[in-house]
């Protein structure tokens, strides 16, 4: 049994313009001490996946299907008390927007110490020392003085680091980090990634790292999920995703980033077309309108997830066709895939 088992998770927003299937059948396992990356364009459903796991969606958003099991316990539809117990205590989240999650009424030190006292077995003196230490570890100057300040006295970047310190201070089993370093400078980002890696090794903490930065993914993740339009298009180990990508969207993403290691000015190869529009979804594969290798079937029918190798999944008709040609898979009478 994995620490976290997500199966066919579906979350929709019911808006006046119609139902938006923000998360549409996401599945994965996360084991203790492992780091899973979720990468994809803005609007592809990364944050909503995280909120769905933690059951912190607000209307018009609603989990409409699937299951999330933490240590074997079902979280979808569980009581508020049970969820509250797990949230913060066993699973912590760092939000993209730090303003929403620090209260302006208590000092930074107060809030940090509170979290440490609640979630670890340190006494008050130890908690204070740990709070100061954590602030230093996330790169905050003069941590002793910051302890007495309020969140509104800090810059955005500094608030984000306090949030990170707070989430890590709880020493959770799973840390969900939603674009934790996107607003921060690379030097601070490097410090924070190092700190996360250290806690992952020391405490066996598992991490779900949500980001659009493939560099961040490569520097910390064991496994990677590539999302597009609410679906997993590819899932594999970091090495599989970076060195042997199968889905055309993953390949496109990797081609479109500049390579800092290259001395030649190679032209970038962008993904063509427009960013995705969740309100006007095509009938077939959501990526097909931007895909150079799209076939007829891609426009009419959604591809299923298919194992292209051990622990490596892709949902792409081109891959399925290659599988059929090499005799690895057969189609059943309904057009479904039989491996």
């Amino acid at each position, binding site marked *: 049994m994995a620490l976290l088992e997500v199966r066919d998770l579906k979350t929709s927003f019911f808006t006046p313009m119609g139902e938006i299937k923000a998360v549409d059948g996401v599945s994965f396992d996360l084991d203790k001490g492992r780091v899973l990356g979720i990468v994809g364009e803005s609007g592809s459903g990364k944050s909503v996946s995280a909120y769905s796991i933690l059951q912190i969606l607000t209307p018009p958003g609603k989990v409409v299907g699937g299951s999330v099991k933490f240590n074997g316990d079902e979280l979808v539809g569980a009581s508020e008390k049970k969820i509250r117990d797990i949230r913060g205590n066993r699973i912590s989240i760092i939000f993209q927007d730090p303003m929403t999650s620090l209260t302006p009424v208590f000092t930074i030190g107060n809030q940090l110490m509170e979290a440490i006292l609640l979630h670890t077995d340190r006494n008050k003196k130890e908690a204070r020392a740990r709070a100061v230490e954590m602030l230093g570890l996330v790169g905050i*100057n003069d941590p002793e003085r910051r302890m007495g300040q309020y969140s509104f006295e800090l810059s955005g970047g500094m608030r984000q680091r306090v949030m990170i310190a707070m989430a890590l201070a709880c020493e959770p089993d799973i840390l969900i980090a939603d674009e934790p370093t996107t607003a921060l400078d690379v030097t601070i980002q*490097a410090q924070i990634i190092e700190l996360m890696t250290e806690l992952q090794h020391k405490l066996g903490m598992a991490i779900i790292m949500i980001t659009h930065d493939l560099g961040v993914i490569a*520097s910390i993740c064991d496994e990677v999920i590539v999302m597009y339009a609410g679906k997993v298009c590819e899932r594999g180990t970091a090495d599989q995703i970076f060195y042997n990508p199968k889905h055309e969207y993953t390949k496109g993403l*990797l081609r479109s980033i500049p390579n*800092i290691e290259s001395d030649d000015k190679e032209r970038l190869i*962008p993904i063509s077309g427009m960013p995705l529009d969740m309100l006007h979804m095509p009938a077939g594969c959501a990526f097909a309108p931007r895909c150079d290798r799209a076939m007829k079937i891609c426009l009419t029918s959604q591809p299923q997830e298919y194992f292209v190798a051990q622990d490596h999944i892709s949902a792409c008709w081109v891959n399925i066709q290659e599988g059929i040609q090499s005799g690895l898979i057969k189609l059943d009478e309904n057009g479904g895939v039989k491996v």
Partner: protein
Amino acid sequence: MSAEYILEVKNLKQYFPVTTGFMKTTLLKAVDDVSFSIKPGETLGMVGESGCGKTTVGRSLMHLYHKTGGDVFFDGIKIEKGATLAAFRKRAQIVFQDPYSSLNPRMTVGDIIAEPIDVHRLAASKKDRDARIGELIQMVGLSSEQATRYAHEFSGGQRQRIGIARALASNPDFIVADEPVSALDVSIQAQVINMLEDLQDKLKLAYLLIAHDLSVVKHISNRIAVMYLGKLVELAPANELHRHPAHPYTQALLSAVPIPDPQKSRESKRIMLSGDVPSPLNAPSGCAFRTRCAMAGASCAEAVPPLREIAPGHFAACVKI
């Protein structure tokens, strides 16, 4: 074009008075004695942590502020008030960072793009103006029918294209692009980067490209300038800066860039900087970087190190080199 450089910035200073207490103001030295030059058709990239003064350099050299000190020469001519400034405003343009807030939502795309045409009276007739809008809008990869729509109907990448079309309207020789792709998804980023490169080739534009993403800057730039707390600390050709960074700050900055390659990432050694950039309101004496520098010694506190040429075309401001 006659001068060797299209743009020369000499000892630029931009100080802002900020309130630091009751009835007390202090000067914040956002840009302090910065000099560089850009050749026609060249791209100079500018990098550094947020708050180091990149945007202020761009705005100050464009004369959007009343500068505290220093001179700006354009095509060999010193920019002063009056005629030289008016001519400069036509030939030098700026593209702003945020494609969401920098375009007026109540104006049509056509009118936004035509702003410089109207300001500088570059169209003889309405027909002329419309033709020019059509030309510009196609140049940035949009379609002329879109000219009558409003900016809020467009995606981030498209808005950035609109901002670029507006900057091109007066036929400039030089564009300051302040974080032009930072707000865009990587798949769209590459489209805009390619477009900036194509426009440069076609129109012989020079760019000052400000960005915090070093991979993007390295990709587009011929040379790169590195800033720290309002000062230039290193300036070198892009490949040279990447292969042989001389200033300890540049070394740390480059080593912090996450490489999208798991193998290389596992092997790479990071130089960790401790703590934060100090506040520009109480910058350390001497070399401003010394409080975070592993190599710092007593001499670093004494005087501000000058930018010295340490190899042909490679400048660095550090006494330890």
